[in-house]
């Protein structure tokens, strides 16, 4: 009966219902687009940041991540790689060797970071080939080719074909130095890194640093980024080796991840704005309708309706409008996010986030962008609806009857 009266009241006061619903629909849709869009943008940033650079998961010798050292190596990396490759969801893996040293071209020298890569695997995993913007990628084993970052090339005034001398320290304590030919210039998207990094063939790097078959890092990518935690666990279990540490991208790029989480707090502000829109819309219209129907509630109470039943009646009306509005809002939200996910919004100027450049931002259609606004709208409508509901429940029939 309460439901029946509630429904009919909603249809009786069409204009008021539409106003209330409109506030809720606008609130819902805004919130949905806000979430869908920010998730989409952050998703894109994360995807590019991980896929092109740090990968989704990394494996190191235990302790390397906290305090990198030339001596913390993985020796039988092919075996580890083979195990990783068998885990479902893993796309590709690639080994890396790291070293620090001094690089000189002609008169100029600067400190450099040396990264030894398996060219074929690196290309497969992080699209190494696409980042070389001038010249060519490294040749196969023991080529004595070197690819240097764009910024580094500038610092050293190096051009393709120049000879570059690297000085470093080998793992056996010896002084290491060798001459390489610059065959390519690379742009990774992270300018800071491009100013110091040079790339060698894995074998060349191992020879220079006297590492003989050992590496520092295995980077791997997965087909679905959402499965990273699961796959991380799976790898840990399969390797079952306490000397190895498996880290998801969130751990590898801690500060990047934290900055992103902090930015996402912006969501909360959006949510408060939506709550306010809904709250004001609901309070206004529902309160008006309760005041207008004082006599009606008076009659209902006089004939024996309990205050709690009146209370439920008012909240029921609010709930019905909320659910209806959420359905309409969900349709609009999905539609808007879908369109934004295809066409995106192109910013007048590109911006850089975590060293990744962006210009067009795409939205994402996901469950979060529906569930969070739905809870927000329902919650704020019900909370605000409490006030008129209590008011209606407290109506004194004797007084209500006197107001004509």
């Amino acid at each position, binding site marked *: 009966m309460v439901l029946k009266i509630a429904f009919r009241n909603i249809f009786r006061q069409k204009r008021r219902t539409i106003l209330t619903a409109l506030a809720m629909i606008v609130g819902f849709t805004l919130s949905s687009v806000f979430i869908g869009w920010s998730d989409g943008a952050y998703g894109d940033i994360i995807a590019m940041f991980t896929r092109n650079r740090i990968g989704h998961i990394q494996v190191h010798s235990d302790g390397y991540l906290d305090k990198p050292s030339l001596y913390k190596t993985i020796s039988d990396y092919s075996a580890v790689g083979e195990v990783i490759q068998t885990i479902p969801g893993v796309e590709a893996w690639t080994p890396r060797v790291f070293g620090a040293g001094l690089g000189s071209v002609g008169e100029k020298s600067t400190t450099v970071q040396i990264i030894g890569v398996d060219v074929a695997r690196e290309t497969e995993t992080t699209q190494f080939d696409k980042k070389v913007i001038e010249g060519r990628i490294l040749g196969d084993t023991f080529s004595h080719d070197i690819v240097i970052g764009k910024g580094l090339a500038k610092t050293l005034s190096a051009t393709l074909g120049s000879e570059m001398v690297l000085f470093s320290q080998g793992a056996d304590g010896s002084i290491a130095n060798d001459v390489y030919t610059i065959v390519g210039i690379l742009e990774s998207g992270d300018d800071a890194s491009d100013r110091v990094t040079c790339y060698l063939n894995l074998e060349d790097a191992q020879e220079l640093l006297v590492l003989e078959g050992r590496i520092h890092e295995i980077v791997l990518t997965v087909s679905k980024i959402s499965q990273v935690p699961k796959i991380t666990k799976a790898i840990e279990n399969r390797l079952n080796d306490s000397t190895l540490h498996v880290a998801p991208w969130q751990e590898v790029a801690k500060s990047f991840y934290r900055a992103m989480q902090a930015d996402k707090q912006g969501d909360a502000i959006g949510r408060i704005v939506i709550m306010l829109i809904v709250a004001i819309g609901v309070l206004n219209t529902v309160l008006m309708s309760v005041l207008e129907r004082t006599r009606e509630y008076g*009659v209902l109470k006089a004939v*024996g309706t309990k205050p709690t039943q009146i209370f439920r009646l008012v909240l029921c009306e609010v709930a019905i409008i909320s659910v209806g509005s959420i359905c309409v809002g969900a349709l609009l939200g999905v539609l808007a996010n879908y369109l934004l996910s295809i066409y995106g919004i192109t910013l007048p100027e590109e911006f850089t986030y975590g060293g990744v450049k962006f210009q067009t931002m795409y939205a994402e259609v996901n469950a979060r962008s529906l569930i969070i606004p739905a809870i927000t709208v329902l919650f704020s409508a019900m909370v605000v609806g409490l006030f008129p509901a209590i008011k209606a429940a407290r109506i004194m029939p004797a007084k209500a009857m006197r107001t004509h």
Partner: protein
Amino acid sequence: MKQAKKNDVIVTQGVTKVYAADGIPVNALAEIDLTIRSGEFTALMGPSGSGKTTFLNIISGLDAPTKGKVWLSGRVLSDMSGNELSDFRRDNIGFIFQAYNLIPVLTVEENVEYIMLLQRVPKAERHERVTAMLEAVGLQGFADRNPTQLSGGQQQRVAIARAMVSEPAIILADEPTANLDSKTGAELLAMMNSLNLETGVTFVFSTHDPMVMESARRLITLRDGQIDTDETKYSG
């Protein structure tokens, strides 16, 4: 203290109501002692402001007296909690107000069955009783209409049907004919009278209408919140 007898459905003792409007106390009722027995058909008369509405509100528990006690069917109203009072009204008192008695979003049938719904009377029985009651007030065929599609007199008849259908002990009506023309008002009173004779339900109603005096068998006149006259025309 007076002891309520079995036949006394409404007993008041020293009922006083003081309103404090804008700080100025208004004595709406002063020390009313009254007993209404089962099956009586009683009219409350009196000039405007004499306290008729206030008295009806107090004996139905819609309003609390400033002083004094009310027994309804042997129970003291002031001893009941809010929810108890709601249930008590639902089961024992039928109301007919001056106007706007009906819930606009419910049909005639739904308005009449509303109280039985609160009482959880089974659907089939509800329907049966509503149909019989609508027939008794001459509204057969109007069950699916909306209140807005009825004349004032028809609406008041629906209100009577609603008040009577749950078979309460008492029906209270505050100027039930005030919004009707005299002919319709007379018809309505005649109907209330015959329902009273048929079912023995106790009727108490207030009125300004001198014509109503004709049909009432007990006539109580209020003046300035006090009982002025109280005459019973013939014992029933």
